[in-house]
């Protein structure tokens, strides 16, 4: 239990997937200009990353490792993720149109989000058990969503009462701010 708790804290904050592991930066820059899109993207990624993480783990353990073709991991995983994302997209469009309208536009972006694929690979690399895979994928994705949300908060404040030079507005200042967020996370060094 305690191990799982530590794993959650570590995956969410201490080794935050965006700020420390450098994955999933494009959406942090691209979809944080408003809370709504940050929340939408965050929710979509939490869902997809958890599904993808566990599915990939199962495939790795039951197929790739059994047959000794681990080197095809990259090919298989990305295929699974791409299919999964598209499956979810089609399903959502039909079953929950309002949700689709809110999250749908983010789904195609997720296929090429390093974070989903990265988490799937990390699960294997760090030899997680199934339970650990589930928790790690979920916690990492939540950590990602939190960064999106914090960034959206900071950007809203900057938009409302800031005066970022026009040449740095948008992507550049978001990157710098992400850097500052990561810098503050240096305080957690040595925790896990």
């Amino acid at each position, binding site marked *: 239990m305690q191990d799982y708790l530590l794993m959650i804290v570590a995956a969410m904050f201490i080794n935050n997937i965006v700020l420390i592991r450098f994955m999933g930066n494009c959406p942090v820059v691209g979809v944080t200009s408003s809370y709504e899109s940050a929340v939408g993207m965050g929710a979509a990624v939490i869902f997809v990353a958890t599904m993808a993480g566990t599915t990939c783990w199962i*495939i790795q353990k039951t*197929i*790739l490792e059994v*047959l*000794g*073709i681990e080197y*095809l991991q990259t*090919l*298989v995983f990305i*295929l*699974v993720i*791409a*299919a999964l994302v*598209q*499956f979810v997209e*089609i*399903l959502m*469009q*039909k*079953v929950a149109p309002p949700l689709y309208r809110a999250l749908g536009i983010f789904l195609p972006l997720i296929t090429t989000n390093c974070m989903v694929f990265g988490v799937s690979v990390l699960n294997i690399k760090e030899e997680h058990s199934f339970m650990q895979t589930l928790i790690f994928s979920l916690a990492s994705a939540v950590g990602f969503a939190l960064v999106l949300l914090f960034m959206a908060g900071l950007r809203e404040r900057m938009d409302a009462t800031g005066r970022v030079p026009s040449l740095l507005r948008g992507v550049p200042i978001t990157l710098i701010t992400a850097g500052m967020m990561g810098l503050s996370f240096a305080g957690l060094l040595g925790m896990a």
Partner: protein
Amino acid sequence: MEPVLTAILTVGAIGMLAGLILGVTAKIFYVHVDPRIGHVADILPGANCGGCGYAGCTDLAAAIVQGNAPANACKAASDELAQKIASMLGISVDQQERQVAQIFCHGDAAHAQRKFVYLGIQDCRAAQLVSGGDKACTYGCLGLGTCVQGCFFGALHMGPNGLPVVDTELCTGCGSCTKICPRHIPKLIPVSQKAAAFCSSHDAGKVVKEICEVGCIGCGLCKKVCPENAVEIDKFLSVVDPAKCTGCGKCFEKCPTGIIQSVVLTRDLKKKAA
């Protein structure tokens, strides 16, 4: 050879499974979205200026595809683009003359009086709310450049005399500036128009004379001399009808304040295009 076969069969099977799942779900959960909407949106300028009256370019694209808006509904798109959209959708467009904005006030600091010194937000709309604006003329340009901010196409800039200037080549005739200006000083005219009275004041001539040296005083001399009957006086303000005006120039000579002037938008454009 065995490892190769293993690889091919496993991954092939996974691929097939993925294909099946996608295919079957796509079949079961089919939702039709008109792909043409995306294509039209691609052609539109994407400035989201709202000049068309729709909430952004994609919205207009949907309207055009559904036949709720004409192919040339986008004020900012050139005729060429409208033609492109029309031919893609297999519909026709009515040719309409291109319009551009002109600034209907020449009352700069040297020629028009101010009531007071304004201190505060540098935005004409905000200034208008403080005692009705600092200009003595309640119709004249306040000169804080809100229209410049409002133009999505960078077609406006503030001239050295503190009045906005239109770059007729960049202006798409979207009308955003007219809408945003608290006094509606920028007005759209057809590019072929040859004369205009560059004043917006409906004040009586006596009042105008007191506060502005370049205002239209509504004396009606232009109306009198115009051989084409192209000039009307609307509440002390001379208005030229572009359909009738031939640009003969008789009114220019007669106007006591010199505010009815020749307009040469077309030549300007041709020169630039060359």
